[in-house]
């Protein structure tokens, strides 16, 4: 029977963004609001 010695690389396991990045994105999303005025759109960041 063939022996498979390969192991998953530790680098591949850690392929995830930092918690701070995700937390920044969620906060950015909460802070961003888009105001529609007639045919125009205004972005406001409430921070």
């Amino acid at each position: 029977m063939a022996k498979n010695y390969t192991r998953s690389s530790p680098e591949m396991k850690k392929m995830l963004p930092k918690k701070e990045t995700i937390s920044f994105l969620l906060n950015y999303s909460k802070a961003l609001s888009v105001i529609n005025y007639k045919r125009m759109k205004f972005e406001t960041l409430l921070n």
Partner: protein
Amino acid sequence: MGQILQDSVMVSNYIKGDECALGVLIERHKQRIYSFIYSKVLDRDITEDIFQDTFIKVIRTLKKGNYNEEGKFLPWVMRISHNLVIDHFRKNNRMPKYDNNGDFNIFSVLSDTNLNAENRIIKSQVENDVRRLVEELPADQKEVLLMRMYQDLSFKEISEKTGVSINTALGRMRYALINLRKVIDKHNIVLTN
């Protein structure tokens, strides 16, 4: 298929104002998107930046109501990240940057052109030797050599200044070099640093 439906439901919930839906979408797809970006740029910090920019674009597009690809959320986000990866490489091509981490050392490209103490002494000795050799040349050859090498005059200008033809000036220069080589060979003078 269930996943695709769920994504589209999450997206529409988010558009309606459910902020938690975005968290769910990011959690669900972060690994694939992050790995995809990393596979292209091979740098954790740049991957982090592009991942963040990707979702900033996603958030802005969804909040503005410009999203019209319901049911295909992940391919859409992947395309955004792909475009940002391309932008990154384009920007880097225009302005290549060298970072000093990993195996690459910036000092293998940039070297200190100043001579060290030993080489400075050798250089001054070589210059002294050359000066003495030139002094030994016949006056007419020395005159042409100095004008050509140190004053950077053309042979036409040399011929005008010395009142000889261009061919004579060329000949004197040639003999000057031949004579210098002869003396250098004869006395085994080393004129390299």
